[in-house]
């Protein structure tokens, strides 16, 4: 199923959706299942919060559409992947961690153990920092020994 729509960036830098020849309107691309099924059920949501277009799966789109939607999604997504935990300030929370991510080395503040969320795959972890940035550890078992030892103290 390929829907008739175009998604383009307007001059103000916003993504605009025009549906079946209608006037275009600024939208945001939102994943319904960002963790369990990132490519399924993507919504293009208008400024009023109502969904304008629902995309059941990215692969139902034409190549151009998919590219635009993926770019629009990428703009919103910010989820650094942690590849190494260099150090933690303390084993009691709040604790400041120095981590290597795929977006560079940074510091994050862990407010409490409950901010570490285990996903259905037990080794996949999401860590929400005190400032609301979500870090991902795709596979905690694949981390190096020192990082795992540090992480273990918080699980």
């Amino acid at each position, binding site marked *: 199923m390929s829907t008739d729509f175009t998604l383009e960036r307007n001059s103000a830098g916003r993504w605009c959706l025009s549906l079946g020849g209608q006037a275009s309107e600024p939208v945001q691309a*939102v994943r319904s299942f960002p963790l369990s*099924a990132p490519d399924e059920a993507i*919504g293009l*949501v208008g400024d009023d919060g*109502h969904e304008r277009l629902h995309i059941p799966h990215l692969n139902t789109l034409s190549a151009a559409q998919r590219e635009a939607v993926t770019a629009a999604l990428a703009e919103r997504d910010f989820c650094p992947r942690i590849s190494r935990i260099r150090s933690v300030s303390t084993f009691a929370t709040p604790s400041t961690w120095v981590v290597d991510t795929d977006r560079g080395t940074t510091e994050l503040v862990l407010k409490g153990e409950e901010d570490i969320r285990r996903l259905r795959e037990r080794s996949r972890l999401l860590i929400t920092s005190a400032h609301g940035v979500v870090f991902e550890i795709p596979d905690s078992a694949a981390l190096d020994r020192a990082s795992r030892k540090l992480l273990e103290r918080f699980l």
Partner: protein
Amino acid sequence: MDRPTSIFADAELPLAQLSLDINADGRFAAGELQLHTRHWRWRAGPESDWAAIERQSTHRLKERDHGGVATLDLMDGDTLLQRWHCTLAQHTELRALLRVFEHGHAQSDDDLPDPEVETPPSTWVLLRLWRFACPYRWQLLLGFVLTLASTAATLVPPYLTIPLMDDVLIPFQNGQAIDPVLVGWLLGGLLGAGLLAWGLGWARTWLLALVSERIAADLRTSAFEHLLGLSLDYFGAKRTGDLMARIGSETDRLSVFLSLHALDFATDVLMLGMTSVILFSINPWLALVTLLPLPFIAWMIHLVRDRLRTGFEKVDRVWGDVTSVLADTIPGIRVVKAFAQERREAQRFKTANQHNLEVNDRINKTWSLFTPTVTLLTDIGLLVVWGFGIWQVSQGDITVGVLTAFIAYIGRFYGRLDSMSRIVSVTQKAAAGAKRIFDILDHQSSVPEPADPLPMPPVTGALRLDRVGFRYGSRSVIRDLSLDIRPGEMIGLVGHSGSGKSTLVNLLCRFYDVSEGRILADGVDLRQVRVADYRQHIGLVLQEPFLFFGSVADNIAYGRPGATREQIVAAARAAHAHDFILRLPHGYDSLVGERGQGLSGGERQRISIARALLIDPKILILDEATSAVDTETEKEIQKALDNLVQGRTTIAIAHRLSTLRKADRLVVMDRGEIVEVGPHDELMAREGHYWRLYQAQLRHEKELQEAA
């Protein structure tokens, strides 16, 4: 009042009887009341004369109870003929009497059991644990053998002190050289015994800890599974914290008891047995003197301990006071702050804490005396052994080595007496814990599964209530209620609070079983099909939607765990929840529930509507689904509900009558009975109950508007 003694000539058995344990003056007595075929017969006490009244068809019985005392009035029209009293301890007899009087027979399909009377738990309850221990009997046997072996190993070293003294040290003092080979053998033996005891001890502790942990885990799982199967009235009568404690910490305490206390005790008893055998084989006389003080010491320790125990129980109770202040204040913190009562709550806590301190001070005085007392008693016991031993050595009956061995054996034994004396109270506590768990396991669901369930026919949503009655305890909540609900019809239940609406809904969900009459779903009595078979056709939306800790998607798919993502999204969209879910940081993967994302009441409600939509139920029950939210949100929810109601039998309770305008029929209830049935317009035209309710609500809304 006539007394036709002649009719008692035949020894007629009464149809029913009641012990009148309170007399007309309100004093305790031992009166009796009998209902015979043709007359009533009663007396105030065993020595009083019988009185009688002939039964008439115009007689009525009126029963009421207050403060645990039931009053029974025999009426003839409006005249009171006789009044009797009894306490509610006679509840069963009273019910039977009333049934016989009204129906002519005592048969009833739901005899209410007497309220549970708590009895102190007997230690034998612990034997019932065997059911859970049975699967591990071989491990337990192995554990026992290991215990035996490791205890035996610990008894070797003291025995080796005999040759060490008599063959090495004493000859050396007498001028002989030490034989290094012999010493090597003896020391090697000591080391070997030590190593053996260490290995065996480790194996047995590990094995038995493993087994007891598994027994407790099995017990916990089956208790929880059984608990989930119990009907709602059980949960209504118990505190959540209490049930949590029973399944959580009580099972854990049992596990500790089995792996630690029971094991230690068994080891100690074994050690006592083996030690006595060894001691008697070495020297019976000294053994007798050594073991003689033992029972005395044990008894005295037990005495002190008993005194301590009552003290500790008091500490427990006071500790309960302290925590209850916390349990009161923390959930109600908004009220405390709103009324600026922080200081008062702090004071309340301080007072409880102060009391706790005082009680602890008192018990500590005794407690601190305990260990020195045990030591003193042990020392005295040792003194006796020394004294008698020295005398025997002087007589040449025993050697110095034998005496040292005795001292070594008994010293290690006296030390264990303290922990042995603890076994009584520990066992009692464990038995109490076991009883509390078995209480759950023994409780039968009041909504029993049928022994021979019928298959559920294709459900269309047709419901029929046939002369339904429901009693809660002795209180009649629903009386003689009949109603036919067509498939796809929407019924609005209306009435004051306490009129029985929610009870009716609970009966329709089969959370409770009817006391009288029956409920038919598509022609089948609900009690004849499996509970789960029926309930999977019911969608329930409650006033306070409950979200489990987990993702939004999990919560929507709660009733249908296999649902695809498309189905979940479709249900959420129909429930007008999709848009706000997309605004959550992780969309459908966001965590909600107790520790999750904060959602507003309306949002939670729409998630619970999506949950009900996803299972596509034939029967839908809305219990005050919109009353906890503001008017604006209500509109949003109402739109969601309109989607939900399509093509389903719907039973809706709503406080705001305006939300029931769409209902095909409104059922107006009052004190457990239906007083009016019909569509809105018809009931308004009738100007009856419904009209009055409606007017009252209009007035109320107007007042609110004027006030605003």
